[in-house]
């Protein structure tokens, strides 16, 4: 696999988004023509693997291979058609009361990494991620609010008080944790 092909693969894997040829070319410091050639090679190389490259005229995205679409659909059904786990409802509560909130703060409050849980909540349509000025934050979706029977987060039980208390504890660089006893 040539260097540019692999580089683009790592980029598309990392962003998990459809990216335009132009954007990829700019980030990789290569011409659009070279990127297109590399994308064609990547597509070919992935043929027998668990992944596939979906390309339109202008964009490319890494997805799971069509060979396993039934398998992945099943997993997905199972993942979302169950009740929220402890971890998921805990993370959702943190998002609800602190939104817009960064992942690092959610991690701190919960004491564990919340990547997988946040992803599940996103897949379920309960939280959404928004990026501004290079900082990503999580918030409840309008659908989630509607499901909870409220029109805005302030209507959550004891909203102000709970938010304040959580904020007081949610400094990720809490120095007291470093102190050995």
């Amino acid at each position: 696999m040539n260097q540019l092909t692999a580089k683009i693969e790592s980029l598309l894997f990392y962003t998990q988004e459809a990216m335009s040829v132009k954007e990829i070319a700019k980030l990789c410091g290569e011409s659009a023509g070279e990127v297109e050639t590399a994308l064609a090679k990547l597509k070919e190389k992935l043929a027998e693997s668990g992944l596939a490259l979906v390309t339109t005229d202008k964009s490319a995205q890494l997805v799971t291979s069509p060979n396993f679409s039934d398998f992945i659909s099943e997993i997905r059904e199972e993942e979302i058609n169950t009740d929220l786990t402890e971890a998921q409802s805990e993370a959702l509560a943190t998002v609800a009361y602190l939104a817009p909130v960064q992942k690092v703060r959610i991690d701190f409050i919960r004491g564990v990494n919340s990547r997988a849980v946040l992803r599940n909540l996103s897949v379920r349509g309960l939280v959404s991620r928004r990026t501004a000025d290079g900082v990503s934050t999580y918030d409840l979706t309008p659908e989630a609010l509607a499901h909870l029977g409220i029109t805005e987060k302030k209507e959550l039980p004891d909203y102000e008080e709970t938010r304040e208390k959580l904020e007081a504890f949610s400094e990720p660089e809490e120095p007291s944790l470093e102190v050995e006893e």
Partner: protein
Amino acid sequence: MKTDFVVQTPNFEGPLDALLSLIEKRKLYINDISLAKVTADYIQFIANNDESITNKAEFLTIASTLVLAKSKSLLPEMMTMEEEEEISELEDRLRAFQLIKEQGGVLAGIFGKQPLFFPQVTKSQTTESVFAPGTTLTKTLLAEKAQAAIVVLPEDTLPTANIEKIVSLEEEIERLERRCRKVASLSFSSAVRSGNRQDKVVLFIAILELSKTGIIRLEQSSMFSDIMIYSQ
């Protein structure tokens, strides 16, 4: 007992850290001879920093092993097998700690320098929008979970160590001073609080401190006889 090692604001993690730094400061290898050489430095370190040392019990346990190493250097033939083992265990702990400190430095050096990345959190590849909250999600549930997070947090930052209460060195020095003012002399064996080795070590350090400042004078008539403490 004057040494060139004076630390006003120690930031040692613990007794092994402090001890290792004393050994390295003198450019010694880790062995029983080195331990004997730094015994006085270590005791002075505890004396100077008694108040700022948080895990006192651990510092004193190691002081007591060092005093053993010191006696070994003076009277090797008097060591029991058990005492020999205690000294060699401390050497091993120091070697392990030294290695961990080194490798910790190596890891800190590469940490985050050439990371591998996890993908960003996204919905899945399928574009169809889904809404699947399950059957249990209510605002009451969220309120409960948020409250639970608040209850758990502050507790976790509280120290919960339940180590045996150890007489502070400062307390011991004060107690000894008071007693010396009342009586002209007393013996080490009558002054010690208990047969506990740590209590003996604290007292031993205390009398060394007091003799250094000239408040008391020490006398031992023969090897292993009781140490007599005279007030000046």
